[in-house]
């Protein structure tokens, strides 16, 4: 029997290189090009990675939600692979948000953590998707795993706006959003450009991680199929 050809991801090397350069440039832009924020000082520069990570994490979980619904409708293993890959990437980015947040919060607010609506929601979002990955690890049959985790994924995602609303009504002292808030909020134009650039760089990282993780899931599926064929050949 000939060894099956191991196919890599076309263009992966080039995109990793491009992404590394982009990330380096984003780091430089956040540290040197962006103007120093008046009241918070240099610590505010963490914002250029903190906020894009939060948005990307949310996009990743949204992709998982769509993939979960798609799986329940079309039963294509590809939807399942996309769901788990995106959830894992989302958890990684949420971890970045939850680590950078307190580092920024301690010098500015004086405390590492406050139980405000957005922080609490991010924390619960993180826990819900860790549970999603945990649940998958505890289910053995691949098809059961896909169906059951897809249903859990839909319920978890529906829960997120409710967690946010409950916390928003519960804690009224939350700060106004920086970008979409009232007249006094907003960023200097140069800050906006750096933010956009960092967002693009981090989106690149997210897409590469997603692609590699998806390929891993695809390969696992192929290995499982080969094992079945090999087992039936033994008999």
């Amino acid at each position, binding site marked *: 029997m000939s060894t099956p050809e191991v196919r890599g991801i076309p263009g992966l090397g080039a995109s990793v290189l491009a992404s590394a350069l982009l990330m380096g440039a984003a780091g430089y832009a956040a540290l040197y090009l962006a103007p120093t924020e008046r009241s918070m000082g240099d610590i505010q520069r963490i914002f250029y990675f903190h906020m894009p990570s939060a948005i990307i994490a949310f996009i990743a979980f949204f992709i998982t939600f769509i993939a979960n619904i798609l799986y329940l409708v079309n039963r294509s293993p590809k939807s399942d692979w996309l769901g788990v890959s995106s959830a894992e990437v989302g958890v990684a980015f949420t971890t970045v948000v939850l680590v950078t947040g307190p580092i920024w919060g301690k010098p500015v607010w004086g405390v590492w953590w406050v139980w405000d609506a957005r922080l609490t929601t991010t924390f619960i979002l993180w826990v819900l998707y860790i549970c999603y990955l945990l649940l998958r690890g505890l289910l053995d049959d691949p098809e*059961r795993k896909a169906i059951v985790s897809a249903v859990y994924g839909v319920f978890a995602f529906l829960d997120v706006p409710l967690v946010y609303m409950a916390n928003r009504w519960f804690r009224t002292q939350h700060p106004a959003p920086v970008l979409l808030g009232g007249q006094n909020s907003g960023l200097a134009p140069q800050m906006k450009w750096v933010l956009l650039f960092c967002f693009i760089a981090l989106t690149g990282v997210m897409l590469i991680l997603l692609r590699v993780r998806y390929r891993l899931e695809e390969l696992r599926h192929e290995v499982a199929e080969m094992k079945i064929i090999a087992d039936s050949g033994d008999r």
Partner: protein
Amino acid sequence: MSINGRSMTLSRASFAILAKELRAEFRSFELLISTLVFVLIVVFLFSFAFDPTIGESRRFGPGLLWIAILFAASLMLQPSFSRERTNDTLGALRLAPIDPFAILAGKLLANFCFLLLVELVLLPAFSVLYDVPLAPVAAQVMVVMLLGSLGIATVGTIFSAIASQARMRELLLPLLMLPALAPILIASTEATAGLLSDPPELQLNWIVFLLAFDVIFLTATWLFGGYLLEE
């Protein structure tokens, strides 16, 4: 179950499952008695942990109450599906020519009843032990209990069906349930706290919130729950 060649309607099938669940439970009272003992232990432990004064117990009482209910539910909902595994009776239920949603709905209603029965004993005990005046606002408290428990029973039943299919299911159910029910904890606690304030006030925004939670997850159960029972 086919009667006169027609399969049962959804509501009849759901009530048949509900009746089966209640009959099974009322033969042994295993689940209800263990849950009740558990919830009373939790309530006792709170007093050792915090030793609250009267003012403090009115301030923290609603939170303690709902934490106790949530913990009790996360244990009580566990056998809902996993006890069907012993003799693979869930497989038998699936063979019935009824909508799979009816199985979920019947179990959901049964769990809702069990939860309410536990609360019916818990509330007076809690009111006496912590000197929290619940009696004058009993009707409003019942509204909060009904809506909060329906939300817990809905999410809990689905997650019980999910956890029962996995390894380590006893540990998994509280893990899945508790974070997802955080909105119920906040809304029910706040609504109960409003009823204990002076003058008592039924905070409509939290009632609407609980109602919205229930409607959203009942709809999701109706749309997606059936997939969990596929073979």
